[in-house]
């Protein structure tokens, strides 16, 4: 009886996980092996059993859309996360110093984190607007562009990708900064005092003390943010809808478009599985890193 007790506590969550996560994942795998391309409401049961094997996967992997979408998603992911780490680390280093109102500023950093992504998307789409957007207005006031020759930032693929990255970086840098700040604050001050007595310069102290002790936190933040950024959806949906001409198409949006807009459920399910292979790779890294911390 005593041996069974922990399992008793686990039962409610087991039921939820098995019925609502594992069964649906298996069902999604099944869907990816059939040819489900119609309105799911009108579909009769027998039609569901039309096995096509790996056909959906072959179609995806031999087409060019998947690969260009993957490349674009990886570009957004790596540039976003890279900038977030760079700016986030700088902010964390500033906030780690002593100054008046430090607690207040740290609280302020929670605002972008709590700010809904969808509102962020609406806000930045407005900033980029070619007719009444702030970005054009400010550039014109500063003399970089002429009044009336406004740029349509979301109108060409490359600038739209970078515009989306900036919106993503603004919202997520704050949380990166807070995580790194928490790690910075756990570095004992005595280490710096000892280094100062030995006459180490502040750059030397950063390279030899701060950075190595911060490295685990940087790695975990990096992997977590990478996984999240790879799944980017809301910003694309609101800001560009995957356009212009598919120029900002990313993995999540491609899956959404194929299934919910074109009704190609099986094709979409196969894309979703291929996409999760990449996320699993990041997840594997993360678990490895955390496991090391646990032991």
């Amino acid at each position, binding site marked *: 009886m005593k041996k069974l*007790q*922990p399992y008793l*506590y*686990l039962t*409610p*969550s087991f039921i*939820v*996980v098995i019925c*609502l*996560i594992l069964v*649906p*994942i298996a*069902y999604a795998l099944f*869907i990816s092996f059939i040819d489900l391309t119609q309105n*799911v409401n009108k*579909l009769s049961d027998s039609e569901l059993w039309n096995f096509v094997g790996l056909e959906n996967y072959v179609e995806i992997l031999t087409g060019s859309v998947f690969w260009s979408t993957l490349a674009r998603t990886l570009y957004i992911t790596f540039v976003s996360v890279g900038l977030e780490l760079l700016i986030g680390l700088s902010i964390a280093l500033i906030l780690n110093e002593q*100054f008046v*109102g430090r607690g207040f*500023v*740290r609280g302020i*950093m*929670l*605002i972008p*984190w*709590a*700010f*809904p992504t*969808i*509102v*962020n998307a*609406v*806000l*930045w789409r407005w*900033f980029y607007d070619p007719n*009444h957007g*702030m970005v054009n207005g*400010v550039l*014109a006031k500063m003399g970089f562009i002429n009044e009336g020759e406004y740029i349509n930032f979301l109108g060409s693929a490359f600038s739209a990708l970078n515009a989306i990255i900036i919106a993503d970086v*603004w919202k997520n840098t704050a*949380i990166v900064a807070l*995580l790194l700040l*928490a790690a910075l604050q756990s570095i004992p001050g005595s280490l710096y005092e000892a280094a100062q007595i030995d006459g180490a310069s502040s750059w030397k102290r950063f390279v030899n003390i701060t950075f190595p002790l911060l490295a685990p936190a940087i790695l975990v933040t990096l992997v977590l943010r990478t*996984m999240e950024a790879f*799944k980017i*959806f*809301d910003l694309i*949906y609101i800001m560009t809808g995957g356009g212009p001409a598919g120029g900002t198409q990313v993995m*999540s949006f491609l899956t*959404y478009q194929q*299934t*919910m807009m074109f009704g190609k*459920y099986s094709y979409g*399910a196969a894309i*979703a599985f291929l*996409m*999760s292979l990449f*996320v*699993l790779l990041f997840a594997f890294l*993360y678990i490895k890193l*955390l496991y090391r911390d646990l032991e």
Partner: protein
Amino acid sequence: MRKKRMKKFFLYIGVLMVLVFTLLPIYLLFIATITPSGELNASTTHFLPSEITLENYKNLFAGEANSGGAPPFFLALRNSLIISLSTTALAIAIGMFASYAYARFRFKGRSQLLMSVLGLRMVPEIVLLIPLYVIFARAGLIDNVATLIIIYTIFNLPFVIWLLQGFFGSVSKEMEESALMDGATHPMFLFRFIVPLSAPGLIATAIFVFLISWDEFMFATIFTSTYDAKTLTVAISEFSQKGMVDFGLQITAGFLGSIPPIILALILQRYIISGLSEGSVKG
């Protein structure tokens, strides 16, 4: 001495830049909500409105279901509140027991199960989107607040279990032994000792779940079709009249919709920051 003063000077410049970077977009958002719509469309820089107007707020609050006008803000707000609060309660209620098992018992398969909890947290939501849509659509359960509550609970459960087992595990072992020696049963111990002692962790976890649910858009937009179930994020995305986005209304709804999570984060920041250092991040 001079060098020290120079350093302080640059530090405050840095702090000022951090503040501007963080707050400027939010400030511009607020200003847009009180700027007359004609002015928003006429110029490109909006740092200060020439006159303050509350027309956006008035029009927003006047929105009704099926009126053909603005989406009904209050219905969407109600749905978002019901869904986020119910998800938070449900995910914590279910997750709490599992976390207790992981934190206080050593049993066969514990570490493997715990790792798979973390693995489940990493599964991209979109993998679940298609099967869940097919299942719920065939069962006629689309456009239902309860459906979204169930889906959000699923997403948050692995995350909740992972976080709470960490918080529960940090309650001292000696306390457990002496409580159990005094005849307390495990459920009594969980509710009388673990829960009160891990209150900060529970609060942090609850805020994370609430914010994730409040923020969610992809499932909300796919699984709803009317204002019986549409959430605030869906409403904000839909502020269009005659094919044109009514930007003033959209931005005002967005601003109001951002207030609850921001206030929550600011009031409970002490818990969030300690919760974040436990190595978890909101998606």
